[in-house]
């Protein structure tokens, strides 16, 4: 498996800039905590598996009320970039916190993918920060969860 083609023009960075700033122009929070681009990083890349390609949205950091818009924007942009036969994979392996807003975003994009008849897989390893809220709310029965990107690609092929 390898990255065969990143989306043109630094796609992930573009999403970050356009969707950032949940707190608007209020920079009073700047000295209270990290800015949103430090809280979450999202990159999108085209990845080839043995028999399939997928657009992988890799998320690292904290997903909460402040940053969830970035996740939604990145996934929406990913849908728009899908080629025929490609699936979308959301890799949450490096996510350190997932709030109820993040859970709802995962449910919404899963339902959107079903409506579009496009495969969407979510990668979470067994570490607690992501799987704990997913299991507590019973969403492990709703979301298509895989342990690794390789597993997700294999399932999509």
């Amino acid at each position: 498996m390898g990255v065969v083609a990143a989306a043109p023009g630094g796609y992930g960075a573009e999403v970050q800039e356009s969707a950032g700033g949940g707190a608007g122009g209020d920079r009073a929070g700047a000295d209270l905590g990290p800015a949103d681009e430090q809280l979450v990083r999202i990159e999108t890349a085209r990845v080839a598996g043995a028999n399939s390609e997928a657009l992988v949205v890799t998320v690292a950091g904290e997903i909460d009320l402040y940053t969830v818009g970035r996740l939604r924007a990145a996934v929406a942009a990913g849908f728009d970039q899908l080629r025929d036969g490609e699936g979308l994979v959301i890799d949450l392996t490096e996510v350190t916190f997932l709030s109820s807003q993040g859970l709802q975003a995962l449910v919404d994009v899963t339902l959107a993918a079903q409506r579009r008849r496009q495969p969407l897989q979510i990668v979470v390893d067994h570490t607690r920060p992501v799987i704990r809220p997913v299991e507590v709310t019973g969403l492990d029965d709703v979301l298509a969860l895989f342990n690794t990107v390789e597993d997700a690609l294999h399932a999509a092929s």
Partner: protein
Amino acid sequence: MPPSGSPETIVPPTRLPARSETGLPGGAVNRSESRRLLRLALPADPIVISVARHQVQRWLVGLSWPPDQLEDIVLAVSEAVSNAVEYAYLDQPRDVVEVHGGVEETPDEQRRVTVVVRDHGRWRPAPADTENRRRGIPLMRACMDTVTIGQPDDGRAGTWVVLRSRAVPPPVVGASDHRGDDQPY
């Protein structure tokens, strides 16, 4: 004055960490005692939810709280703060969200924390939206021993959420007494 909630949702003052427990205010509070307390007052802005999480985490690490239970408490507090940030000041100027925590010993020599997340906005007897009703509140309840949503007992406006953790064993003597001060945030 907002309407009163049903009796079971009103938190009796005795359920809160009393001032005698938390050691405030006044007088000299030594370091080991002050480490047992959490006192945050944050502007109700979405960016502070992360700040609250990291502060609660640092506090609990300083108490040598077991990691799994620590993460559950952080998750529950985050949901409560998030709810206050999103809904408390919808129709009025943003004020603060307060996060106060204290530790108590249980009769069987275990310990638990109680964290009160309080705003001064409008009283919200039930979650204001279905998303939070479906996910946020169940998350809090799953992560804590008890979750009580009520009106502050001092007559001021607002909502408080009292999060009472599960009991955990006492810390190992001598273990990581200073870890809470070394966190990078």
